[in-house]
């Protein structure tokens, strides 16, 4: 019983202290202690980015098979996006932040996607989900635009055909890191794998 009583006392003490601070009655060392315990200092951009990354509004936009996996991510209780705060899907681009391009981009659809992207307000991010949106995927032919990065700036590419829901969630987490400004280690840094880069002039095999 003592334990709960001290906890209740502790809570009560804290409440009284907070009341005193609000009334302006705390001063000197008490005030400094209070501030050190409660307040957190950060830069404005960091706070802003933290708010933005935890509250992404995806645009409800699905093109082809990857859209099924995207709806599974949004709608299935097993892997869902609500745990990241991104469950509020907005169907109008004016209110959305995040365009998840899921599916193959055909030449008829490309100008429409560009229009949707232009209608979104800053700040906005694009995740290219699946192989068909990142490059041509397996459809390297007349009807598919080989990668949406021909007409849109893309932030994160998620490979797979279709990517597993866990892969898409990993992509969204990487986007969140990018929004925070700490884009995360590339694989070369993680595995200390320097020394095998290719020469940029394309000198080739010989």
């Amino acid at each position, binding site marked *: 019983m003592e334990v709960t009583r001290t906890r209740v006392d502790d809570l009560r003490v804290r409440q009284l202290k907070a009341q005193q601070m609000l009334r302006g009655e705390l001063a000197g060392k008490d005030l400094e202690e209070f501030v050190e315990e409660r307040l957190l200092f950060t830069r404005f951009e960091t706070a802003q980015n933290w708010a933005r990354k935890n509250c992404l509004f995806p645009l409800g936009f699905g093109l082809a*098979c990857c859209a099924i996996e995207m709806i599974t991510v949004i*709608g299935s*209780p097993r892997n869902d996006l609500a745990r990241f705060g991104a469950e509020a899907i907005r169907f109008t681009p004016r209110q959305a932040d995040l365009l998840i391009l899921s599916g193959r981009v055909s030449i008829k*659809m490309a100008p429409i996607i560009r229009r949707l992207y232009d209608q979104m307000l800053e700040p906005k991010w694009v995740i290219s989900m699946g192989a068909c949106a990142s490059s041509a995927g397996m459809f390297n*032919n*007349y009807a598919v635009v080989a990668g949406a990065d021909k007409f849109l700036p893309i932030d994160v590419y998620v490979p797979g055909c*279709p990517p597993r829901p866990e892969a898409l969630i990993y992509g969204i987490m990487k986007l969140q890191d990018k929004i925070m400004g700490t884009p995360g280690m590339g694989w070369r840094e993680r595995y200390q794998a320097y020394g095998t880069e290719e020469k940029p002039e394309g000198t080739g095999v010989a």
Partner: protein
Amino acid sequence: MTDFDPTSVPYRERERSVTMEPMREEPVSGTEAIAEGDRHDELLTINIGPHHPATHGVLRLLTTLEGEVVRDVKPIIGYVHTGIEKSCEDQQYWKAITFVERMDYLAYYFNAMAFCMAVEKLLDIEVPPRAQYLRVAHMELNRIASHLFAFATGALDIGAVTMLWWGCRDRDLVLDLFEMSSGQRMHTRYFQVGGVMEDIPPGWEQKTREFCKVMPQRLDQYLDLLDRNEIWMRRTKGTGIISQERALELGVTGPLLRATGHPWDLRKATPYSSYEHFDFDVPVGIHGDNYDRFKVRIEEVRESIKIVEQALDGLPEGPWITDNRKVALPPRHELATSMEALIHHFKLVTEGFRVPPGEAYAAVESPRGELGCFVVADGSAKPARVHVRDPSFVNLQSLPDMARDSLIADFIACVAMLDPILGGVDR
């Protein structure tokens, strides 16, 4: 009907959203004469889609509205056209399976099955019975998954959002089974020409039986949610009616045709892949409205569960792919001992098997209707023409008939219950 044809507007002009057109004096047949003061004086032609929450994919519907009533709708498609049929002409037969799978992207096993059946007809090879039963089990599981997704998104469009979570949750159970048998959740390359790619792992049968035990209770939960719900009944009963003769004329097949009362099901009419060994019923509706389509799909899920259980009960022993080494890869342990197996493996992997010249058309009953695959072979290792007769492509032609003179909300319910899959429509 209206004289103004929205498609007479030039293509680039039509990319703009709205046109207005003054209406004629006399009221349109089918609606009562409206009093002078209440008359709407314009016909509004707007675009619904291609980016729209309620179209199942990128479907653009050019609707002519008079107030809230839809007078005419023209579906415009082609926004996901990927040239799959042309790409298949450049690939070996077993590689073409992966292309064809991505057409109707919710019913991937059916696409692969139609293609494999057509190629097996051309090659004139027999599929072993174990492979046939495994194919049936996987196809029926895929039918269940596809119908669940249709309920989930269809109910979402009509407004019952809870169904989305439940449908996706149960669909995840089926995808787990697929992942266990083939490694991928969607677009598994499990069906190969001559059988299936590999045998089911131990424990799959057990897990599938557990799923079959759980699923009927889940179906009853869905019915508790929706079936006695007044809002659902008012939205779906009596809306989107199409008559049986009109459906037959338009070539509509699948649950839409069965909802109008015509019991045409390819699994019963021209049984393929040992469907004749199974005992199941074909649910048929009465009126041809949205509610009947919904109920037909629910009952089809029940029948599919029965088929899966029977397939597991009667699963014969034996090889899971044909023994013809010119078509199917030899098992790996033979590669160490037999020179011929090595040569066959090499030829199959590098060049692929050759198919003697001919043409074949094979049809399966997919969750949306008759899915047919037409393959022309010219003797080389690549098909000369692959065409897939997609059920959604043909079913979409019935949308103007269903939607004429109905409210927009009923029209959206029609699209939801029509269940088009745009990957198949556009190929």
